[in-house]
């Protein structure tokens, strides 16, 4: 069973992609969540979906686009969507979270229109929505490696700026941090990550990979670095166990990974509660 993962190319691609997703999603997710932008991933994933549909439509109508992976259209739409969100956040300063439902609805609206224009697609849209192991190609993996390298490089070299902007945007600005550029670049990275990860986890579940491991980590982390570290560990546990069970039981990979992430969260919550209970009992006994 485990030997299959090395024997078949598509399983190897899936495994490497999963490991990369488990690394970059929670790292970006930690910054997103502390900035109260956890819904951002949801908004952008729907825009990505419309990009994929646009790519499929073009390849159906124009032969030239047949050779282009719809994933790249997803990335393009997602990046444009992230720029729109930044713009809308400025327009609605007092209601910054309003930007996300606007972009989310626009993305979904465009997606349904494109699907109706194409009169349906032969390609399995279900896999884009919920993730499917057998659909990961070498090209998808390369795209993810490229995005992952940029994300990790950015977080390595701009960690202190990202932290400063996330913790206190006004102070960062007064300290001379190029806040606008950092924010914009960060949103572009989130957009690219969502698009590149959708083959494994699926567009509709990608935001779970960005938020749930971080939610678990925030319960126990003693520092921001720890929050990132624990979130990454929880995400890797979810991805690896999720992929294993998805293959074993022939379930949708995205759903299985997300269920594993929820399971990890519940274990963390229960352990924390049990730990607090044990401490209380010990103190009572001592008293």
């Amino acid at each position: 069973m485990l030997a299959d993962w090395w024997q078949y190319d598509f399983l190897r691609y899936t495994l490497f992609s999963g490991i990369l997703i488990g690394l970059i999603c929670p790292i970006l997710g930690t910054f997103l969540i502390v900035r109260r932008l956890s819904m951002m991933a949801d908004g952008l994933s729907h825009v990505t979906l419309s990009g994929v549909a646009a790519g499929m439509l073009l390849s159906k109508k124009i032969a030239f686009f047949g050779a282009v992976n719809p994933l790249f259209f997803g990335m393009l739409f997602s990046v444009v969507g992230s720029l729109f969100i930044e713009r809308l956040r400025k327009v609605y300063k007092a209601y910054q979270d309003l930007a996300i439902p606007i972009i989310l609805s626009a993305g979904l609206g465009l997606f349904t229109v494109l699907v109706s224009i194409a009169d349906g697609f032969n390609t399995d849209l279900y896999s884009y929505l919920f993730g499917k192991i057998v659909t990961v190609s070498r090209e998808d993996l390369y795209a993810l490696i490229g995005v992952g390298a940029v994300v990790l490089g950015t977080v390595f070299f701009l960690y202190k700026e990202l932290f400063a902007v996330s913790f206190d945007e006004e102070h960062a600005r007064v300290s001379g941090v190029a806040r606008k550029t950092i924010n914009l670049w960060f949103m572009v990275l989130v957009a690219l990550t969502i698009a590149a990860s959708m083959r494994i986890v699926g567009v509709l579940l990608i935001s779970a990979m960005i938020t749930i491991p971080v939610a678990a980590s925030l319960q126990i982390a003693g520092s921001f670095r720890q929050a990132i570290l624990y979130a990454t560990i929880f995400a890797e546990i979810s991805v690896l166990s999720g992929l294993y069970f998805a293959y074993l039981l022939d379930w949708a990979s995205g759903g299985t990974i997300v269920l594993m992430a929820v399971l990890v969260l519940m274990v963390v919550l229960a352990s924390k509660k049990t730990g607090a209970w044990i401490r209380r009992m010990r103190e009572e006994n001592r008293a």
Partner: protein
Amino acid sequence: MKESVVRLSSLSFQYEDGKKILDHINFNMEKGDFVGLVGPNGSGKSTLMKLILGLLPPKEGTVELFGTPVQKFRDWTKIGYVAQQAAHGTGGFPATVKEVVASGLVGKVGLFRRLKREHYEKVAEVVKRVGLGEKLNDRIGKLSGGQLQRVFIARALVADPELLILDEPTVGVDQESIEQFYGLLRSLKEENELTMMIVSHDVGVMTQWVNKVACLQRGLHFHGTADEFAHNQDKILQSMYGDAIRVLAHHH
């Protein structure tokens, strides 16, 4: 004549709705000054602060920092800023005292450079100086309001600024901590030769610690030494707040 740190000349400001917030402010702050800026709510204190910090562009008149117009000023590490504590809302943020204070070095260290051991040594030194040495690795969520305020002061001081600006730093801090807080500010000022501006609506406490006072209510109603202010306090405050004001003196 001492070096001018902040100079405002004929500074007026109105928001897009046309309401005039600041009207012809002329103000000079020299090196070594400890200025208390007082004024009622809505008097334009926060707007003035934002103009000095370059967060709002001056539309009429000029703002100069260390002799340079604020629009051209780039040396922001010379300025330490502590915002209103109420505006932070950062208690739930998963960061340690060390991480928060280190973020004050971000402008000084520069883009693409990572914080090194000597930077963290400096962080530990400043945290110890504000009396939180034992809390260095604690999550900020575990601190009291007064302790958290000292963390933000440490963040503002860690890059060795020449000018420290504090906006309503004692809001939400208990009376005992306020006394300690002003004592800390005074000793920091003397040790580091800091120039300081503190914005507060608590006239009674603050004016006992500063050496200059500026009273703002759209325009400057008073600008002089703390002693001059103390002698004319009732008259000045009545001209700002109207006859309804009753001055309650604090004695410490």
